């Protein structure tokens, strides 16, 4: 990391996890500020002006989803949530409330780092330039000309498939909930029709993946939504611009 170190606020009540985050993140050049409770966390986030917030959903004093809502009142900085298993419902609610990504405990430190990087990148370059080209693995998408290639062979997509793909590209590396995708691609009236999304995701995989049953690009986050894998070797690990 160069220049000024990115600032991260960790809102987590468990001291062991805080310690592990502090040591690990500090070693990777982040500046860390900690808070034990939701209320304290909101104050710390307000004073430290962080580049990213790591938030535990199971706080003793406040519902994590409420913390996100409060944060989203004044900042659009990325929020990564930490949740225990079997909390799919809370996880989805947190993502819908504006969280950017999630990690299920226990998680590996490399996973966390990867998520932080994706989130920070989106924060620096929000959205996607219409004139750029996206490339991941064997798939290349020319967003200006609205063309999609697999192994340099052009693939024909329907308008919805294309819209779905570009939406995923826009937030590549980030998890998108069913609700978010349905709203963005089909419109707010379709949020209950998640099977539409699944069917289209299926056809999209058949068109873009080498083995649709073992997808490399269009990943399923079971119970939550989908994620587009952004950094598939051997291609460049970031959007080419």
């Amino acid at each position, binding site marked *: 990391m160069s220049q000024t170190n990115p600032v991260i606020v960790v809102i987590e009540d468990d001291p062991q996890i805080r310690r592990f985050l502090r040591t690990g993140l500090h070693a990777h050049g982040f500046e860390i500020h900690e808070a034990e409770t939701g209320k304290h966390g909101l104050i710390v986030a307000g004073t430290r002006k962080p580049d990213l917030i790591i938030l535990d959903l199971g706080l003793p004093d406040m519902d994590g989803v409420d913390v996100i809502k409060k944060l989203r009142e004044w900042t659009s900085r990325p929020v990564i949530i930490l949740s225990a*298993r*079997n909390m*799919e419902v809370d996880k989805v609610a947190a993502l819908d409330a504006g969280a950017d990504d999630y990690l299920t405990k*226990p998680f*590996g430190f490399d996973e966390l780092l990867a998520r932080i990087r994706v989130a920070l990148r989106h924060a620096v370059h929000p959205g996607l330039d219409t004139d750029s080209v996206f490339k991941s693995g064997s798939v290349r998408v020319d967003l200006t*000309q*609205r*063309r*999609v290639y697999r192994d340099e062979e*052009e693939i*024909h*997509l*329907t*308008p*919805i498939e*294309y819209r779905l793909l570009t939406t995923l590209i826009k937030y590549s590396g980030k998890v998108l909930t069913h609700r978010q995708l349905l709203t963005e691609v089909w419109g707010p009236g379709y949020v209950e*029709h*998640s*099977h*539409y999304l*699944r*069917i289209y*995701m*299926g056809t999209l*995989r058949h068109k873009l993946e080498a*083995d*649709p*049953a*073992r*997808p490399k690009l269009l*990943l*399923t986050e*079971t*119970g939550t939504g989908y994620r587009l894998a952004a950094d598939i070797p051997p291609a460049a690990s970031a959007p080419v611009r």
Partner: protein
Amino acid sequence: MIEQRPDPDALLAKLNLAEARSRRGRLKIFFGAAAGVGKTYAMLSEGREKRAEGTDVVIGVVETHGRVETLALAEGLGALPPRIIDYRGTQLREFDLDAALKRCPTLILVDELAHTNAEGSRHPKRWNDVEELLDAGIDVYTTLNVQHLESLNDIVGGITQVRVWETVPDTVFEHADEVEIVDLPPDDLLERLREGKVYLPQQAERAIENFFRKGNLIALRELALRRTAERVDAQMRDYRDDKAIRDIWRAGERILVCIGPNPIAERLIRAGKRLASSLHADWIVAYVESPRLQRLNAAARDELLAYLRLAEELGAETATLSAQDMSATILEFAHRKNATKIVLGKPTRTGWRRWLLGSIVDTIVRGAHDLDIYLLATDKEAIALQPGNLALLTRSRAYLGLAEQEKGSAKTRYPRYLWGIGVTALTTAISALMFGHFDLSNLVMVYLLGVVVVAARFGRGPSVLSSVLSVAAFDFFFVSPRFSFAVSDVQYLITFAVMLLVGLIVGTLTVNLRSEAKVSAHRERRAGVLYAFTRALGSAQTEEEIARAAVKHIGDEFEGQSVILFPDAEGRIRYPESQSMQYSFHSADLGVAQWVFDHAKPAGKGTDTLPGTEGVYFPIKGSSGVIGVLALLPVNLRRIFLPEQQRLVDTFISQLVQAIERVRLAKEAQTARVNAETESLRNSLLAAISHDFRTPLASIVGASSSLIDRGTTLSEDARRDLSKTIYEEARRMTRLANNLLDMARLEAGGVKLKREWYPIEEIVGGVLTRLQTRLENHPVKVNLPPGLPLVQVDAVMIEQVLENLLENALKYTPGGTAIEVGAEANSREVAFWVADRGPGLPPGKEDLLFEKFFRATAEGAQSGVGLGLTICRAIVTAHGGTIDAENREGGGALFRFTIPVTEAPPQIVPEEEQLLAVK
């Protein structure tokens, strides 16, 4: 010589009594010879003393009758306000039992034990109230006059010519913990009377004048003293029983009193009671129901019932025997019950009738070799005292509610006599046709046939009528001179006499035969009912079924509605929640039922408690207390309270109890078994956890401590190795913890499936992506045929199943062997499968695999608590599907689970075929 030892049963009874005593309140009776001797005063004085000692004393009810001294005494003690009952316009002040129970003092003073409560009270008599107070553990002081004691009631009546009908059963008096006699010499009492210190009701002045004669008072005083002495004597005997310092063991006397439906019954019962008390013996009052007695009208049967009630109140066991031959039955019963003495009324038949027809008494005397027989005078003088006595008895037990008469008995009687006349007329007509062709003796036979027919069809009365008419008609129409009652030949007189006699005897025999047949038919029916009931109970599996069967059969037998009420968890009686049926007693009073349940005593119409209620309520007593209440609304109370019917009710209830307890025991056994299983599960869980958690923990602790202690001295590779160990072992523990949590969640039943429509490919893909790193060493072959439908599942759960199956395959197969995953579908179900080429399943244990904590190998390298497959089964079952496992041909295991297709997958509106290419 045989050492004489106390009877164990008697000792046990004594122990039970002592135990009941310790829970019950203590009863002290202030006992006097007549009104005015100062019982109330004595009671209040002692109450005050108790108060001074610090006892919580309260006055329940005390009649001061405005006497100053009494009033002054009552002043200091708190009194419960009376309950005001509005009775036909007058306001009656009654003792408030509920208030007393609520107040729950240590000692309560309740005056006049023999008082009859106003209609609408819970109990008809005050002594019932007192019993309830004692049951509640409250000590009671009360007052009683000698003439109110049931067993002395008739004697006092005999002495004073005044009979009171407010009586207290002797059992209450005998079971009192203490009796204090309040004695005042007759002269002093008369003195007090003259001074107006004795309260006397105005209206009965004359009777009272009669009552308070010196002679009477002396006699009453003697009675009271003697009764108290008897009680002391009995106590003394009890004491000697206790201490086993008896020189003479009780002879085991048992007295049998036989009563019939006549006024002497009351005297027989009272005499039996006195005899039994003086001999300290058990006694039984039996009533033999012969065919003749079965023809009694309703009023007479009610009377009998009242007598038997009286006997029960006096502490007798009662029995109803039914038989043709009274004397044989009585003797047989006496032997069976080991009776030593029989009390009978003196024979009513006298002179030639006794000689000719015999007498029950004579037969018994002849047959009873080892029994003492007591005969009670039934002379005119004795009975002369009785007029109105019966009415009195019935009135005093009006609460039995049996006054209703059976209608139509008179109406049906007369046509029967007409039939008797008609049949005789018919035989006369037949005889007229035969006359001249046959001998006169043949005509006699025709007449006799007519009598038999009448007897068989219309009973005794018409048959007698028919016999007499036949003789008359025979004489009038056929014996010369014809058409006159005169007889020319004297020998016909013998014909008439024999004809009449034969007619009467044949008639009686036929009638008896008929009624016996009726009785046995009745018995057979009853046996049949019981049998059917027992069978119905036997096949009932739940308490509800039992209750239903009982309600139905009780309805059949007692011709009434009934309901069986059980308490809820808090012991409150509740109406059953299931839908009611034809025989259900809908308006049962739950308050009464609650009382019955709490006190384990019957209540309702015909009983001592709340006789004003519509139905009768019986406690259902199980082996460990009352388990419910049977509420019955009979069409006719006699159907329940006749002794034999009462026993039938008891039999029904005991059958019911057995059935219910059987079901409950079965349920308890089931629970116990489940508990035992849970226990053993917990043990295997603990064993598994202690192994599966400790192993990785040991590795983690070991590796991390090495890193901390010697981190700097270790080579880079070694450090890396140790770190990797920590990481992998922690992962292993995570999986284990997750499995345990999942299992707990599934078992708790708190899991709600979130079923949505998914492409099968996405589910399989999700799992494979997640397990990517762990599947590195195993080539995975995915087998998804094109065109698979959407499947409606909870994807998180189903992925869990696939993940567990894949992990299972990973665990048991060596690296490098292929694992296959696939799915197939037909119109009814979608099947997923996972197959490997590992060692396969232990043969014969395919089903055990899915049991909790089962592992293919006992303990060893393979980690995991053995919960994975159990979780799979739980999830698949929740989806309505099945899971099974089998060995594959060519080696390896195949796990397969199905999800039923319950509805057609949703359609999506196809997108317009408009491709993107905008070249």
